[in-house]
C-alpha cells in the first residue's frame, strides 16, 4: 500500500476492530479448550483461569475415549461430511455449469427454483423427510444424512458457482469445442480448475453446518452405530447430571477434524487465486 493512503490512526483503528472481532470469535472456543483440561470443581470455581498443577486433569478425555465409541462417531461424522461435500460440489458444479453455459427454455426459472432453497430452511421439511427415509428404509443409515446434507448444500453451491462459471471465458470453452473436447472434458478440465476458489468457498460454507448439525443425526440416525460426533457428545449431557469434563473434551476433539479440513480447503483457495488464468 502506498504511504499516501495509510495513516497510523486509521490502521490502528482497523486493527483494533479486527482484533476485537477475533477475540469475540475465539473466546468460546478457547474457554472450551481450557476447561476441557481441568477437573470438574475447577471448571465451576474459575472458568476463565488456565489449568494449573492443582486443577489440571485429563479426566474428561479419559472418559470420552473410554466411554462410548468415540472413534466410530468421528468416523461417522467424517464420512457424512466428506461425502456430502463431494456430492454438493460435484452436482452443484454440474448444475451451475448447465445454468451458466447453455441457453434453454426455462433457464432463469430453473435457476430461481434451484436457488430457492437458500431462503427456505430444510428443517421445515423434517417430517416429510423422515417419512421418506422410513419408506426408503434408510433410517439409521449414514446414507440418509448424506442425502439430506447434499440437498441442503446444493442451493447455495449452485447460486455461487453459476455466478463464477459465467465469468469463465467463453473463448476458452469454445476453443475446447473447436479442438473436439467433449462437454464433460470442457467442464472437468477447463472450467472446474478455473473456479477452484469458488469451490473452496462453497466447501467451507457447506462443511461447517454439516459437521455441527445435531438435528438430523438425532432424528434420522440416532442408532449407536451411526451417531455423529455432535450427537455422541450429548451422551454426557443428562437431564439431572452433566459430565462437563467429558462434554468439553468431546467438543475440543470435535474441533480438530473440521479445522484440518478447513486448512486443506483454504490452501486450495489461495492456490486457486494465484494460479494463471486465461490471460
Amino acid at each position, binding site marked *: 500500500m502506498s504511504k499516501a493512503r495509510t495513516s497510523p490512526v486509521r490502521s490502528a483503528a482497523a486493527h483494533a476492530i479486527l482484533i476485537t472481532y477475533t477475540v469475540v470469535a475465539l473466546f468460546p472456543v478457547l474457554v472450551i479448550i481450557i476447561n476441557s483440561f481441568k477437573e470438574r470443581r475447577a471448571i465451576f470455581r474459575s472458568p476463565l483461569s488456565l489449568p494449573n498443577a492443582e486443577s489440571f486433569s485429563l479426566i474428561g478425555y479419559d472418559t470420552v475415549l473410554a466411554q462410548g465409541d468415540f472413534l466410530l462417531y468421528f468416523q461417522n461424522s467424517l464420512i457424512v461430511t466428506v461425502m456430502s461435500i463431494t456430492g454438493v460440489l460435484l452436482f452443484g458444479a454440474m448444475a451451475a455449469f448447465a445454468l451458466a453455459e447453455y441457453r434453454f427454455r426455462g433457464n432463469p426459472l430453473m435457476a430461481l427454483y434451484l436457488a430457492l432453497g437458500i431462503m427456505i430452511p430444510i428443517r421445515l421439511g423434517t417430517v416429510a423427510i423422515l417419512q421418506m427415509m422410513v419408506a426408503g428404509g434408510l433410517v439409521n443409515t449414514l446414507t440418509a444424512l448424506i442425502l439430506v446434507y447434499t440437498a441442503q448444500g446444493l442451493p447455495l453451491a449452485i447460486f455461487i458457482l453459476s455466478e463464477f462459471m459465467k465469468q469463465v471465458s467463453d*473463448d476458452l470453452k469454445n476453443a475446447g*469445442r*473447436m*479442438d*473436439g*473436447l467433449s462437454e464433460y472434458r470442457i467442464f472437468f478440465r477447463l472450467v472446474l480448475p478455473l473456479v477452484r476458489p469458488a469451490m473452496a468457498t462453497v466447501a467451507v460454507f457447506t462443511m461447517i453446518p454439516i459437521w455441527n448439525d445435531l438435528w438430523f443425526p438425532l432424528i434420522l440416525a440416532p442408532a449407536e452405530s451411526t451417531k455423529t460426533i455432535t450427537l455422541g457428545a450429548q451422551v454426557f449431557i443428562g437431564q439431572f447430571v452433566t459430565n462437563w469434563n467429558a462434554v468439553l473434551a468431546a467438543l475440543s476433539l470435535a474441533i480438530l477434524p473440521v479445522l484440518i479440513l478447513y486448512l486443506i480447503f483454504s490452501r486450495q483457495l489461495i492456490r486457486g487465486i494465484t494460479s494463471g488464468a486465461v*490471460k
Partner: protein
Amino acid sequence: MGSLRLENIRKSFGKVEVLKGIDLEVKDGEFVIFVGPSGCGKSTLLRVIAGLEDATSGNVLIDGEAVDHVPPAKRGIAMVFQSYALYPHLNVRDNMGLGLKQAGRPKAEIGERVAVASKMLGLDKYLDRRPAELSGGQRQRVAIGRAIVRSPKLFLFDEPLSNLDAALRVNTRLEIAKLHRELSATMIYVTHDQVEAMTLADRIAILNEGRIEQVGTPMELYNRPANLFVAGFIGSPKMNFIPAATLRDGGASTVGIRPEHITVDAQEGRWKGTVLHAEHLGADTILYLDTEQAGFLTVRLFGEHRFGTDDVLYATPQPERIYRFDDDGKAIA
C-alpha cells in the same frame, strides 16, 4: 479446397434478430474480412460459421457441403480467439497438439506438425512453457500455431489483435499476412478496425445491423462506396457529408467528399471558411473548418502546413472525387 458459401443466414436471440439474411461466397484461398461497428453481428456470424452457434435459418457450406449439423471439431476449421483462449493447464506443445490428439492422430505426426508450426512462428524455444509464462504476443502466436497445426480448410480469426499493444499489433498483422501467403489458406477475419481490414483483406464485407452493406476489395470500397454507411465507415478521418440542398445540388440528398480530396488555398477557392482546429501529425495536417457554404468540413493535407486556428481559408473539392447519395443513402452512379 477451402471455399465457403453462406446462404441466407439468419440468427435470432429470443426476439432480437442479430443476423438478417447473410449471403456470401468466399473462394478458395481468399482472405475475407468482416468489419463493422460493435453489435453489427460480425462475431455472431463467425461463430455460426464455426458451428459454435446454430443459425436460426439458412445454410453454411464448406467446400460445397452443408455443415449445418456438423459439430465444430469436424468442420475442418480452426479458430483464433481474441482472448487467445489457451488451455492454462497445458504447455505450448500440448496446447497446439490437443486438437490432433482428440482427432486420434499418431503421436509422431502430431510432433512433426507442432514442430513445423512452432518454427514458422518462432515458438521453438517456448514449447515447454505454460501460457502463464508467456507474453501477450507470444500467447497470440501460440493461438495462431494451434490453428495452423490442424491444417484446416478454413481459418477463422475473431479480433485476434485487439488485445495487443499498438507496436505488437502491427507486427502480428504482418505475420498474419505472411502466413496467408505461405499457407495460401482461406481465411475469415473479424475486426472492427478498418486499418486491419484495409491492409490484410483480399475482400472486405462491411456489416451493419445484421446485414452486409457491401462486399468488395479495399479499393473498391474506398473508391466506389455503395451507400452512406460504407462511405462513412471506410476512410480516416471520416468522409464529409454535406446536405445537398445547402450546395444547391439537385438530384441528390447528400454530397460526400473525403478529407484528403479537398484542397485549400489562402487566396481563393469554392468554400470560404475559418480554421476551428488544426492537428499537425508530421506526415499529415488535419484541419477542421467552419465554412460559409458547406458547414463543418474536415480536410486532410499531406505534409506539413503552417495553418493555425482562426486562419481564413478557401477549400475546394476535387470535382471527380465528389460522391452523391440519394434519399435512401444509396450512391448515385
